[in-house]
């Protein structure tokens, strides 16, 4: 039994299933488009054309920026000529970063729920259990089939966002501002580890539930800590930094290792078969 060949076959089949189903790929394109491209581009564009200080409810953000500047967390803010520069710089390089994590979380949840619980729902999982592939191979194939598109989608969105952000910011700053270390670590370290963690969590959930909807709803709970990170960032209470991002990525990997152990422990061929009878 050639494991690599079986893993490749599983990945190809699952990716083909995604591209064949509009219900799957459409939300996976719309969310990155809104969260990663349209919304940030619109905000940066507006910010570059409007006197932001005149907008009343942005006062809290400016206060936060003053604090971040004076405390030395983002010292470069102090040398910027206007509040608009400061706000746009903060939005483009800090604010949207945790928001960006919604993309791999969402994609990983949908892909894994479809791939595992979806197989159960469509009564095709048993056919796979009757093949001589090991459960290890099956899980590797399933995880990769969700991980690869999830990371690719995040990276492509990152590239598009980067191009747009630089196009909009260049006339104001006269330099290429994007990406900073935060973004590089986020995309190369946190996005893959976050995707892996969400996928493994969803594999665990999918193996226990009977259908796609149930798996997707339970898997959605993983967004809660992400919302906390976004709120922390927006309020200036928890500023992401390269060190924090490295730690978050490491913590996510650690959680993934624990989940991997649980997946191996709770998902033997016989347990999987019995869960769908």
């Amino acid at each position, binding site marked *: *039994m*050639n494991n690599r*060949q*079986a893993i*490749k*076959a*599983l990945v*190809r*089949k699952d990716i*083909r*299933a995604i591209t*064949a*189903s509009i219900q799957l790929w459409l939300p996976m394109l719309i969310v990155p488009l809104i969260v990663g491209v349209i919304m940030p581009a619109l905000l940066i564009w507006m910010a570059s054309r409007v006197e932001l200080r005149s907008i009343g409810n942005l006062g809290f953000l400016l206060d936060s920026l003053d604090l971040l500047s004076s405390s030395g967390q983002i010292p470069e803010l102090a040398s910027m000529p206007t509040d608009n520069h400061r706000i746009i710089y903060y939005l483009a390089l800090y604010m949207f970063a945790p928001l960006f994590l919604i993309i791999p979380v969402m994609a990983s949840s949908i892909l894994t729920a479809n791939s595992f619980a979806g197989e159960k729902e*469509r*009564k*095709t999982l*048993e*056919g*796979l*259990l*009757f*093949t*001589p*592939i*090991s459960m290890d191979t099956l899980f590797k194939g399933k995880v990769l089939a969700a991980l690869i598109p999830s990371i690719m989608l995040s990276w492509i969105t990152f590239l598009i966002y980067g191009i747009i952000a630089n196009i909009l910011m260049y006339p104001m700053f006269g330099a290429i501002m994007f990406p900073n270390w935060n973004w590089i670590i986020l995309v190369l370290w946190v996005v893959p580890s976050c995707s892996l963690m969400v996928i493994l969590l969803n594999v665990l959930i999918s193996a226990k539930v009977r259908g796609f909807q149930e798996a997707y709803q339970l898997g959605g709970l993983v967004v809660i800590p992400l919302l906390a990170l976004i709120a922390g960032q927006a309020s200036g209470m928890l500023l992401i930094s390269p060190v924090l991002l490295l730690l978050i990525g490491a913590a996510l990997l650690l959680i993934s290792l624990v989940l991997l152990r649980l997946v191996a422990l709770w998902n033997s*061929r*016989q347990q999987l*078969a*019995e869960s769908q*009878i």
Partner: protein
Amino acid sequence: MIEVRSISKQFKEHQALRDVSFTIEQGSVTGLIGPNGSGKTTLIRIMNGVLGATSGSVTINGLDPSAHAEKVLAMCGTLTEQSGLYENMSGRDNLMFFAEVFGVQQHTARIDELAELFELQEYQHRKVGTYSTGMKKRLGLARVLLHRPSILFLDEPTNGLDPDGIQMVLRIIRRLNREEKMTILVSSHVLSQLSAVCDRYIFMEKGRKVEEGSEQEIVNRYLTAPRLEVEAALTDGWSAAAEFNPEIISTDKAIFQLQSREEIPMLLRQLTTKGQVYQARMIGSDLESIYFAIREAHHYE
């Protein structure tokens, strides 16, 4: 060889199998017969190592499937009622996928061969979602034969098929058994469909094995007191065989309830000396009648 020893299976509240034992010889075709819910599918899953038994043991060519599932699955081909096919993929893509998962060498040639055997060439590039039940069944059969298994488990392979489809499946079972010496276990709730292909039968009822053997063995076991319907023109009427207590149906037809098979030639000899015997046939001697009698006997257990 497949050996099943005292297998029981409990699903939470439901006892699916109770102390089932039997042996299947290499190269034989065995019919696993029983109504829906009698435990046939559970038994097939356990024999493959896909489900674990609550107690008892199974060996497939000397291997324990629950410990060596991958090795056992590599030598077995199993078609369950849910064909396990991907409806969004074409028939050929399904076969390609499973060939890669099974690690089949030169799979293009093997797929072509199976597409021809199951007359799928015309539809192989169509999505499986558009297939009829019969086409799906044929594709499912092709799928489980991709890796040239030596043992074949077919769970209700004729379910939902039209008479032509049933004949095709039976023809293929015969061919695989004769030409490739495959050991085949085929389950069905319709005995009559399988009588043309099976060497032996295992009857299941409510999770228990209630009978086992070849057709002849089972018939001999149950046919201790045969009923014989005779059509004859006798000079003195049925009084000529009065000692056999005929139930007279008409002047030329009567039924005899005999005490043993040995009485049959005695009766016929006597009748032929008294007139012309045109026809004599056993009533309720076929396997299906016996099967229903066995089921009836176990119904209230």
